[in-house]
């Protein structure tokens, strides 16, 4: 069940109505049943994985907490939880890729046609694995007591607005909300805010992302036929496509949770207005970057900080910069790998790591705001070439064309000639809203207006635009595949 299907549009209001009709102490059960039903709609056999993951993490946290005073035992249970969680992720998502890699490199593994090596990864596994690990780590670091109620913990893992593509919620933020009676009361503000987020999410997905994808897909499916100018246009459109698709999904997820009074952290903060790559990663996929900072970058940097005690390395590198370089390289390598079993994602991750290290080494401050935004956007665009390409060879073909063979702009004159026009219109409207929020936030607002008629009219306008400009083929959200 995707968010952009009739099924979900019927499912969500039903769940919300039942939620408010159900006595508080049974709501966890209703939401868990709804979440499992939502998940089973993908493939019933995937339930085995999510239930197994839930049990492993539930018991791991309890055992970690029980052995608070015994550091060695505590660490053992943490390692067991990590091995099982990450082992499952590697087995189900990366085994085929690893097999291909070693087969090509050393020719020592079974031929890459074995079906056991290409299991279908359960949808959402990358997300609920990280979300479960935040809970285990938070318990290990004494940030919270383990959740004793297995049903509420199972709900934390499988909560349907978040299960497919996040946002990856901190256990200290989301879990207490399931027990919060005050939060669970029906409030018109929650209903309105939730609907507003959902409507905007559908606009981003159905109008901007899906309209833009028509042009982008047609270019990337025929890379040998196009020149540099077309690729530049396609990658710019892709930057809007991927942002709108994922931000749209996040809005719908956050809005769905808000309808029931749950507060889920925002995942995007107008990332293309960033003035540096450093800033970009505080605005793009915020839940993932927070997870990586808290549970990978920080422990790595503290570890290397202790090991690197010299005044200077290679005569010029300060230990804190070397620490930052090592920790950042590993973190963004993992970030790339997390996104998918393909070298293009790994290169994308490594590129961002390099950007951050160079940015830190130069440590340039100030400068013209517009120039900074443009330079940052260009760096992000270059990395998106790898992210979007099917393989490294395709990325290189595109880069070569951009540098050496401009060609002429590809304009489709087939049956779907309006798609680019609608896409540009959708992007224009989105940018209008984003510029307003970024630079003129205190001035007049339609959707945030005190007058409820103006607010309702603005929602109606967006719905009209969705119906007129949107694509209704229930296409998959891009980040579901990660």
């Amino acid at each position, binding site marked *: 069940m995707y968010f952009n299907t009739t099924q979900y549009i019927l499912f969500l209001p039903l769940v919300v109505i039942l939620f408010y009709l159900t006595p508080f102490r049974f709501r966890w059960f209703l939401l868990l049943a709804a979440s499992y039903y939502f998940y089973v709609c993908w493939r019933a056999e995937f339930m085995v994985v999510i239930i197994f993951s839930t049990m492993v993490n539930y018991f791991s946290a309890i055992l970690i907490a029980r052995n608070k005073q015994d550091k060695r035992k505590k660490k053992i249970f943490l390692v067991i939880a990590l091995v099982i969680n990450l082992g499952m992720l590697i087995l189900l998502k990366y085994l085929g890729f690893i097999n291909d890699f070693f087969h090509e490199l050393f020719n020592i593994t079974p031929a890459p046609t074995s079906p056991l090596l290409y299991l279908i990864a359960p949808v959402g596994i990358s997300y609920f694995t990280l979300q479960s690990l935040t809970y285990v780590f938070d318990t290990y*670091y004494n*940030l919270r007591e383990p959740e004793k109620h297995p049903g509420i913990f199972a709900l934390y893992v499988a909560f349907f607005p978040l299960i497919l593509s996040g946002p990856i919620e901190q256990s200290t933020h989301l879990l207490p909300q399931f027990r919060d009676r005050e939060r669970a009361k029906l409030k018109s503000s929650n209903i309105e805010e939730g609907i507003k987020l959902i409507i905007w999410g559908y606009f981003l997905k159905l109008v901007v992302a899906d309209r833009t994808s028509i042009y982008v897909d047609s270019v990337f499916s025929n890379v040998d036929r196009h020149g540099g100018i077309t690729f530049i246009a396609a990658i710019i459109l892709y930057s809007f496509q991927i942002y709108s698709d994922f931000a749209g999904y996040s809005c719908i997820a956050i809005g769905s949770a808000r309808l029931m009074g749950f507060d889920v952290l925002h995942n995007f903060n107008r990332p293309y207005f960033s003035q540096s790559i450093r800033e970009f990663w505080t605005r793009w996929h915020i839940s993932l970057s927070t997870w990586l900072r808290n549970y990978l970058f*920080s*422990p790595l*940097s*503290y*570890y290397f900080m202790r090991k690197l005690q010299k005044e200077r390395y290679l005569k010029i590198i300060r230990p*804190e910069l070397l620490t*930052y370089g090592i920790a950042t390289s590993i973190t963004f390598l993992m970030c790339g790998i997390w996104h998918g079993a393909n070298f293009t994602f790994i290169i994308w991750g490594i590129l961002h790591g390099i950007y951050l290290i160079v940015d*830190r080494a130069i440590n340039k401050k100030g400068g013209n705001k517009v120039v900074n935004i443009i330079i940052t956007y260009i760096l992000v665009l270059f990395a998106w070439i790898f992210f979007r390409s099917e393989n490294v060879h395709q990325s290189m073909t595109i880069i070569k064309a951009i540098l050496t063979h401009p060609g002429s702009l590809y304009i489709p004159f087939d049956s779907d000639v309006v798609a680019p026009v609608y896409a540009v219109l959708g992007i224009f409207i989105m940018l209008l809203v984003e510029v307003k929020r970024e630079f003129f936030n205190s001035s007049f607002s339609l959707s945030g207006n005190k007058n409820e008629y103006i607010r309702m009219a603005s929602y109606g306008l967006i719905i009209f635009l969705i119906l007129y400009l949107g694509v209704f083929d229930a296409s998959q959200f891009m980040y579901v595949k990660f």
Partner: protein
Amino acid sequence: MESIEILNRINNIFALVLENQRLTLTRESVITNVEGWDSFTNIKLILTMEKQFQMNFNTFEIQACRNIGDLCDTIQRKLT
């Protein structure tokens, strides 16, 4: 050492490392609302605080600190 004195000393360390003499921290200050405090400068801050307070922070203690107040409490606990 009193909590307020610890906060003042932390403030001085932050002002030095972040090169901002006008910086004023509160117990509620977090990484997202202090200019210049990020994952990189955090490394330098931890190192400097360890030297100034003559103590080592372990991973638990660092991870558990969500704001300056938590950091003050951790330092006070380690000093007593």
